[in-house]
């Protein structure tokens, strides 16, 4: 599903260039359930944004489903984000003026589905995350857990194979967080490939594999030590 070799990502801020990723090799197979952990600023989000084609690496090779991502046009990248990838963010990132229904509908609009198809799909998705009765609510009229469930429904809109979640429980209380994690578990069982960034080792432990990052590199050091560090940060 994902083949990354020697991936680098440099950010340019004014005259200063900062390399957030400095040569990362990662291979993820279909239907894997992966956690990415690491201290703040280690490049987790940067890595995930590359995986989701929100940005292009400045070095290395990245194949997504055998396609070389660096060679794709902005429109092709947009289509990949629309159909192959579903993002879930810590800050939910819902459109504030749109209802739950409209938020979930948007990726379907971009995919060019008919009104009837969209209606059926949005209803199905919101029911699946347990928000069948809140379709007309705007984000301001929902709790954090509910907003994140809308975001998951939106991420699932076009049945993407790959779900990327950047600290999805970071803004939620323990109970709501747990409910969100349950949804991810179900999605994994349904065959989705799932990558979660988290500071919560309880969540990370439930994954099949943990990828550790440190200063823009894969951290292959002492697992126990890393675990403690991460727990402290969280």
């Amino acid at each position: 599903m994902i083949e990354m070799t020697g991936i680098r990502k440099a950010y340019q801020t004014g005259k200063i260039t900062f390399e957030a990723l400095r040569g990362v090799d990662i291979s993820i197979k279909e239907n894997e359930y992966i956690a990415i952990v690491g201290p703040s600023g280690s490049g987790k989000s940067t890595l995930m944004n590359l995986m989701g084609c929100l940005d292009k690496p400045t070095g290395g090779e990245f194949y997504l489903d055998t396609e070389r991502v660096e060679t794709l046009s902005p429109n092709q990248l947009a289509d990949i984000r629309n159909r192959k990838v579903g993002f879930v963010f810590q800050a939910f990132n819902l459109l504030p003026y749109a209802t739950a229904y409209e938020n979930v509908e948007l990726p379907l609009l971009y995919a060019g589905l008919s009104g009837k198809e969209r209606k059926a799909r949005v209803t199905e998705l919101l029911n699946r995350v347990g928000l069948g009765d809140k379709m007309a609510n705007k984000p301001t009229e929902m709790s954090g857990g509910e907003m994140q469930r809308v975001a998951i429904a939106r991420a699932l809109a076009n049945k993407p194979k790959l779900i990327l979640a950047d600290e999805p429980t970071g803004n939620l209380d323990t109970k709501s967080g747990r409910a969100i994690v349950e949804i991810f578990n179900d999605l994994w069982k349904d065959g989705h490939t799932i990558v979660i960034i988290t500071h919560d080792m309880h969540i990370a432990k439930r994954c099949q594999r943990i990828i550790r990052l440190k200063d823009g590199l894969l951290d292959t050091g002492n697992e126990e030590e890393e675990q403690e560090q991460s727990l402290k940060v969280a």
Partner: protein
Amino acid sequence: MKPSILFNVFAQDFKKQRKRMVLTLMAILWGTMSIMLLLAYGEGMKDQFSKNLNGLGEGIVILWGGQTSVPFQGYGKGRRIHLHPEDVDYLKGRMPELEIVAAEYIRWGAEIKYKDKLISERINGVYPEYKEIRNFIPEMGGRMINELDMQSRRRVAFLGNEVKNRLFGYDTPDENIIGETIQINSTPYTVIGIMQPKIQMSSYQGSDEDVIAIPATTFHAILGDPYLDNIIFKPAEGFTFEDIESRLFSVMGSKYKFDPNDDQTLHTWDIMEERKVTMDIFQVIQYFLGFVGGLTLIIAAVGVANIMYVSIKERTREIGIKMAIGARRIYILMQFIVEALGITFLGGTLGICSAYLLTELFKMVPIESEVLNFMGRPTVSLEIGITVTVILGILGFFAGLFPAMKAASVNPNEALRYE
């Protein structure tokens, strides 16, 4: 993109930047109104001039006899060409390109008498067709000379609205004048009609308000002029005088034996041509007024572009979200263009409506003045509406395009980090 989402975005923006939005809307409204009013003013003036130019007649050509300037078929040069009464039927028969042919006799300084009043005036022997082609329109209660008057050579007179005043005084109502008998060179004539006042901007023999018209046949029989003073004709639909000028010279040339290429033999005055030149001048004035108004609108459009730039900054995160879920650049582009067009058309519609209301209100104000008779009143035409709408569309599009290009070019990753 769902229209309601676009609308909601717009509504939300409007709330956030109400003051700026209102100012921008006002600017567009004002710009649209000023361009509309300027154009309406030009249009009104053009209409009025067009009407005034029609006072003499619409699309007519006046023809006078001249003098040969080259020898032809044994005739020497310098021979006078006179127009004869039978030329009217001759031209009608030979030239189907002419819709109407009429003619007239003129006698200056005839003595006109009504009771004790004696004045010296010009009298014209005219054809009934003058009603149509020379706008000899009778006031209610009277009539213009007709075909029967012509055939029976009736002694009837149709009076210009000014000469009537001189003869009967300013206070005598028209109904007391119709049917009265006046003497023209001691011959009695019955007054059958009085001309409706009209504005006439050009003439070849003096103003029509001073005309004393009698049937051409009566004129010929009583006053005995052998020659017509002029012939007036109107080219048929689809013909201009230019198309038929050479035909006219050869048709007349074959009757009067002159060289059809000799342009001194007949003199013509093509009102249509003159009118075209005048109207062209007004068109140029319209362009100028449109340009001036357009500048005002451009400034307003810059305001729209500015508000769009600001709103992009505020909505960077929204753009990032949309890109993250798969919006192509064109969707982002469209959203901003549609929004700019929305503001422009909202302001524009208000402006068009206000300008229309203002001009309609002005039309209802019952002022009669020489200036208005000359300048006309501002008139909003469909053409103006379409022109302004197109200008608004173009400006709105560009006011949206540049900010939209900026919006669509943001890196989705950066946009999502934007706070």
